[in-house]
């Protein structure tokens, strides 16, 4: 019969192409989500090249230097305070004074020109993160920066996606710790029973009425 337009296998072809299309779109979406979460996009665990290969492991873990020695404004300003050349030189004018690795720091001290470091934690400009309030309310450095005291070269510990911020703003009791443990990198907030953490949230007056998840808490 010549009036038959579709060949016998047309039905199968239609189904195969429909399923194929769905699978194709699905896999493209999955691939994009995978890329979005991968270190290739988020830079998590990827150390950037810096003018000086500074090691937090050496300074924090081995020498036991307090975070605040260099990040001096972390308790009183939004910005933790990137150490100036002067801060580096307050030790390195005395030790490792001939190390070629520190030549950029010595040059900066002599000429007054900045050492241009590459930023690791870079929030979008529409996010107004404040270090001081988090430190004041018992959120430890390690909650966001991970075990930075174990990093030889600095890399992000978190992708800093909004959902991750909100997770803690919804349930601060998961990450709160006693204030005197804030700078203790090895402290695990979960080592405290939930009831004690809930009590800390109350004691530190961390609001639990949903205010912390309002847009204006982070966006202005």
């Amino acid at each position, binding site marked *: 019969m010549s009036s038959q337009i579709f060949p016998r296998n047309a039905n199968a072809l239609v189904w195969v*192409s429909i399923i194929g299309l769905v699978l194709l779109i699905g896999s493209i979406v999955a691939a994009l989500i995978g890329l979005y979460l991968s270190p290739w996009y988020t830079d998590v665990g990827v150390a950037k090249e810096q003018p000086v290969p500074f090691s937090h492991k050496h300074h924090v873990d081995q020498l036991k230097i307090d975070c605040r020695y260099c990040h*001096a404004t972390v308790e009183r300003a939004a*910005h933790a305070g*990137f150490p100036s050349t*002067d801060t580096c030189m307050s*030790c390195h004018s005395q030790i*490792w004074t001939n190390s070629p690795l520190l030549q950029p720091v010595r040059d900066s001290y002599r000429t007054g020109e900045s050492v241009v470091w590459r930023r690791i934690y870079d929030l979008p*400009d529409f996010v107004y993160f404040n270090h001081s309030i988090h430190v004041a309310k018992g959120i430890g450095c390690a909650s966001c920066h991970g075990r930075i005291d174990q990093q030889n070269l600095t890399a992000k510990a978190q992708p800093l996606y909004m959902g991750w911020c909100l997770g803690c703003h919804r349930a601060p009791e998961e990450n709160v710790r006693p204030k005197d443990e804030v700078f203790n990198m090895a402290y695990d907030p979960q080592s405290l029973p939930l009831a004690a953490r809930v009590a800390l949230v109350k004691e530190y007056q961390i609001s639990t009425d949903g205010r912390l998840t309002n847009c204006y808490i982070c966006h202005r």
Partner: protein
Amino acid sequence: MPGTPKLNASRLARVAWLPLCLLLVACHVDMYDQPKYAPNQPSAFFEDGRAMRPPVENSVPIGSFQPDSALNTGKLNGELATELPMELTAALLERGQTRYNAYCAPCHGLGGDGNGVIAYRGGIQVPGLHNERLRTVAIGYYFDVITNGINRMYSYANRIPPEDRWAVAAYVRALQLSQYADANELTAEERQQLEGR
């Protein structure tokens, strides 16, 4: 037979733009990187290449700032202050302890013996805080040294605010007392603790 591939191709073509939508999402970064300065950003505008501006010389904070007060200079009428310009409280000493441990201990050691980790690693002679001269000097001396530095020690003025410098000075006094207290002045309980060690 010949119609089939053509039909499928046109069907595919009709929805082929859909995945492209996903690629278009989040292509704009002009809100991520707004034309404004954040701390420590480089700047092509200012000569020194820094977005952060140093305060104009001789500028002071707004409010009740008294540039000549003992609180801000460590000196009274040109002489090193001999007393704290604030009340001595347990909270002040605790504050001083955290500051001392963060900023001073790397060189001077947690106990003030001049045996901090930097002194040890660098093979540097760091003065201990327990010698006769330092135990008897006016307390304003510590404020002055933290503010202006001395010998090889840099100024810590940009890292330790004036109130905290006094807290450190008070804590240094406590450290000195801890090393030179008379055992006879201790209570019986404290004596027991001392001897038990």
